[in-house]
């Protein structure tokens, strides 16, 4: 097990460095922040000085090297634009993104799992067909269209939910939460719905496929033959056997949701990490972009490692294969 963990950790470090390297390759093509940092009246001399001070005149390998050495010490630098510590800025916004992702995941499970079960056991019924059809819409609509649509219906026409922002938050010292206030709860509904739509479809289709598989298996036939009630067969026996892949996929998708939340965050002005990143791109705020990509890569790597390790614990064959 120890060897397994060490191997995974060294893999993780390699992945992180590669991501950072790719990020820096992209940054060199994004443009030059200096012209946006100074105003119309700044002279050429001032522009050159600033470029030199920020180290932007150095070759890109050197810029990359400096970044990696500093990042390894936990120092991601100061944002060009906001003049603030990058790590502070990201950790200040992480709770917003994480709560959004959590609520979206919750919605996707609560809605997706029952829909998957229904479409599997009532395959021929009109409502199962209807659910299948709507799920295609869910999977094919881009999330900014969904977001704007939700805003139009629920904020502008009906006036039920706010169209932007996170509402009032409660500061717990190490975490700010919007889930404890009324306005915070109202504010999270639309962005979470919009973010979860794709997930709902995914969960529903996965559960459906798994259910169809399990319902064909022998133990279900025996249960039926024994006269176990249908409800109990479907929800107690069959569904339980479907949940393992659903849980795995949901855990893996959390990383994806955190990364993809940036579209939803932009539409709803949700003050999370994605919004920060999008703005950093427009202003070529290299320290923020670099730190964001590193952290998202880290989240992916950590989630994957946990899932792999959990598998190894659950399934002894994997452990054996590793040795």
């Amino acid at each position, binding site marked *: 097990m120890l060897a397994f963990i060490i191997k995974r950790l060294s893999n993780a470090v390699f992945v992180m460095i590669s991501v950072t390297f790719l990020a820096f390759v992209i940054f060199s*093509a*994004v*443009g*030059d*922040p200096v*012209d*946006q*940092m*100074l*105003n*119309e*009246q*700044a*002279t*050429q*001399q*001032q*522009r050159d000085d*600033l470029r030199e*001070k*920020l*180290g932007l005149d150095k070759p890109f390998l050197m810029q990359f090297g400096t970044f990696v050495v500093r990042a390894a010490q936990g*120092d991601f*630098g*100061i*944002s*060009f*634009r*906001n*003049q*603030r*510590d990058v790590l502070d*800025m990201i950790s*200040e*916004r992480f709770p917003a993104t994480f709560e959004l992702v959590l609520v979206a995941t919750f919605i996707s499970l609560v809605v997706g799992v029952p829909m998957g079960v229904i479409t599997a056991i009532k395959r021929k019924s009109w409502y199962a067909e209807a659910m299948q059809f709507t799920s295609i819409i869910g999977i094919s609509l881009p999330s900014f269209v969904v977001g*704007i649509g939700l*805003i*139009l219906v629920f*904020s*502008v026409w009906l*006036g039920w939910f*706010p*169209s*932007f*922002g*996170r509402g009032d*938050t409660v500061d717990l010292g190490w975490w700010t939460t919007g889930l404890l206030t009324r306005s915070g709860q109202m504010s999270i509904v639309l962005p979470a719905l919009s973010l979860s739509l794709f997930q709902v479809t995914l969960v529903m289709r996965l559960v459906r496929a798994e259910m169809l598989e399990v319902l064909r298996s022998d133990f279900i036939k025996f249960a039926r033959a024994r006269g176990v009630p249908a409800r109990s067969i479907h929800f107690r026996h069959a569904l339980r056997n479907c949940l393992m892949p659903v849980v795995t996929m949901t855990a893996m998708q959390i990383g994806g949701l955190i990364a993809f939340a940036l579209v939803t965050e*932009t*539409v*709803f*002005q949700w*003050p999370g990490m994605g*919004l*920060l990143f*999008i*703005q950093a791109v*427009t*202003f*070529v705020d290299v320290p923020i972009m670099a730190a964001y990509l590193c952290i998202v890569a880290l989240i992916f790597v950590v989630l994957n490692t946990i899932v792999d390790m959990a598998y190894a614990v659950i399934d002894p064959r994997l452990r054996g294969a590793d040795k």
Partner: protein
Amino acid sequence: MEMLKTLRHGVIGGVTATLLATAAHAETVRWGAPRDIVSLDPYSYGDSYTINFLNHVYEGLVRYNRDLEIEPALATSWELVSPTTWRFTLREGVKFHDGADFTAEDVLASLLRVSDEASPLKGNLPAYKSATVVDDYTIDVELNGAYPLLLNDLTNIHIFDKGWLVANNAEKPTDVSAGVEGYATFNTNGTGPFMLESRTPEAQTILTVNEAWWDEPSHNLTRIEFQPISSAATRVAALLSGEVDFVDSAPVQDLPRLEQADNLEILERADLRTVMLGFNRRDELVAGGTNPMNDLKVRQAMQMAVDMELIRDKVMRGKSRNAGTLVAPSIPGYSAELDQPVAYDPEKAKALLVEAGYPDGFEFDFVCTNESYVNEEQFCQAIASMWSRVGLSPKLDIGPTAKQTPKRANGKADVYTLGWATLPMLDTYSILVQVLHSKDGNSGVFNWGDWSYPELDKLTQSAAVELDRDTRLQMETDALKIARDEVIMMPLHQQPMAWAVSKEFSDFPQFPDNKPRMWYVTK
């Protein structure tokens, strides 16, 4: 009985007064902004949007009035003691938000801070050399040379409290390269009409009225809730659903929809920013071959080939104002005589190209951005196709500003867009020295095409030190005439700007520099 009546009157009067008082205390403006401010420190980043917002909290020695004329603010009067020294008499009895008194030491500390080597706003005060405190309410500012635009520059130099800066170790501006944060990035202490209550970046910044403001307020607001909403569609939705009641950047395409709403009023006008095209004037084109654009006839042909009226009517939805000169009408130095847009004449354009020896046109790079100016992508496409019609072959290159600017600044663009508002100076001198002057030392930073007109340079340099306003403005106008005659840059239009406000506001002045100034707003 009589007494009871009086008593009742008294009670009712009291109740009414309380009601009125609560009503008067709830005048809030909820401001849906296209972007957040970058910091609470006005000297941290050369960003005029942030500086303007912070002008609600901090003030300068002088300020713009409702007609964008300079008037006294923290200074009550000023005089020239010598051609290079200005003496300012400061306002007495002004207090900072924390109760500290405003004195000449505060002005000195602020000038030192903004002109520090590490300050990105150093360029906002180019002529500053040093300052000397004469007494508590008098300060002398010495300049590098005679300079007529000091007051214009000072409108944007916010005054900090020295004691507060010292106590919080913030006398120097923050410096990204040093890797340290500053106290003033998170806290404020100004003299302005509003005080900071709280700020959550990207979510909201709340200001409340400063009851102890030195000036008689002409606004009746008690609270400003500044909420950035970067997505234009969401901003419009928030306005329609009544979650915000002022938007300072209403998208042009949504104006008809907003106009239909009963509770909204649309304020529209032409911006101060003049959008123009610049030409590469080096010997070789980026696209290859000798550069035909060094021939005046070619530049004239390119100008005549563009139908600006069509662009105004179709691309800009009739909202732009076509320009004949490089500055907007309200900028000092502007001349109506020069502001005659060149007539669209494709036949003459073709003839001029033949005369210049390019009957089959030539190929060149045309660099535009997709977000710097209103509908830029669309008008660039329109211009490119109009040029193709007279036989030219523009290669259109559209991308984000951050990517296109290095190309333009390093001479990798044959024709490029540029918008110039002369901000924060509000004087023609700004475009003369920064854009039209030859690239030489600190002048011509935006002379991306690398041209040189010695006569124009001479006029610019004379205007820089001419203290007589009329003579100076005449020089600036003469320089603009050279620019027009030689088609150094091709003016396109002043772009439209639109604000949308709730009808609950009785007075909401809109300024041509596109800066909301809430201390003139009445609800």
